[in-house]
């Protein structure tokens, strides 16, 4: 668990400018907190300006005694995403880390999925991530340095009944990671993904109890994971500790079988 408190000495993200999408709750919020604790300048993101985004920004500043920033952009709004990078460029002139986390979960059996649902999930989880990757890599290319961590899912690796659309979007994130890692390696930009298993977030709390129990039964470590446990793996991949790691998809799943 991440302890409350000030920045650690020898913080591994000290001085890094880090943009975390979908970072006002769940895994994204845990990543933002851990990044701030490790000395990073964190740029938070959510769909709407003000409100929760501003509350979280203030919370980070108060807890870790350093400036935090917030940029609103919906993952389905390409122009708004591009606007975020213009603002980052204007204010910081560079970006060291992107965590492509924003995503939604909408489960339904194949015959029950509307086209609108398919487009919404793919647009949010995959198209939005691609645009972030595209924009971030251009900023990073200037400095010939950077790390991008995409949040996929165990479902994108192995699939699951009732999750064809979510699986397709998260498998797409893996394909995107592997291709971008190859393209960007010569520019010293690393691209990796994490594939969380069953993690205790608002998203997974939507599951009916029987489904929840079914998933828990498939975890070798016999417990649900925490957002902080995913965040710590993302910190590693984002940091220089992983300076020779690219094109990897790291499961954070407690030995889960789907």
């Amino acid at each position, binding site marked *: 668990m991440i302890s409350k408190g000030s920045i650690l000495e020898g913080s591994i993200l000290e001085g890094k400018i880090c943009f975390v999408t979908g970072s006002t709750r769940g895994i994204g919020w845990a990543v933002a907190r851990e990044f701030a604790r490790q000395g990073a300048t964190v740029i938070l993101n959510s769909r709407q300006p003000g409100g929760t985004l501003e509350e979280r920004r203030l919370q980070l500043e108060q807890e870790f005694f350093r400036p935090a920033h917030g940029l609103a952009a919906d993952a389905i709004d390409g122009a708004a995403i*591009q606007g975020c*990078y*213009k603002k980052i*460029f204007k204010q910081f002139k560079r970006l060291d880390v992107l965590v492509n986390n924003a995503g939604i979960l909408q489960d339904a059996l194949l015959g029950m999925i509307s086209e609108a649902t398919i487009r919404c999930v793919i647009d949010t989880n995959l198209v939005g991530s691609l645009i972030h990757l*595209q*924009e971030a890599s*251009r*900023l990073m*290319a*200037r400095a010939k340095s950077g790390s991008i961590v995409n949040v996929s899912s165990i479902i994108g690796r192995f699939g699951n009944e009732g999750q064809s659309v979510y699986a397709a979007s998260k498998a797409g994130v893996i394909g995107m990671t592997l291709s971008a890692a190859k393209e960007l390696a010569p520019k010293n930009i690393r691209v990796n993904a994490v594939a969380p298993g069953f993690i205790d977030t608002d998203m997974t709390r939507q599951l009916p109890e029987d489904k929840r129990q079914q998933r828990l039964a498939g975890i070798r470590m016999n417990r649900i994971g925490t957002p902080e446990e995913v965040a710590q793996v993302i910190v590693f991949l984002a940091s220089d500790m992983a300076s020779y790691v690219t094109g990897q998809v790291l499961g954070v799943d407690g030995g889960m079988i789907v």
Partner: protein
Amino acid sequence: MSSLEKLQAAFVSAIGVPAAANFEELAYGQTSGWDSVAHMTLVNEIETGFDIMLDTNDVIGMSSFIKAREILGKYGVVFA
């Protein structure tokens, strides 16, 4: 260095054309060395040189030296 010289220098560095090239004739996919990889290097050089960030549509639309000059005009770069 004038804006024109700066733009020419970006093309020389990214695409490898000689400094004495006829820049007005340079076009993506036609000028030797100006492929997609060189194009991204060119964009990088231009963005760094002029301290701007181009829209993705402008990156894609920068198909010639003349077009590059035109696009930069939108970002407030003045060519005397």
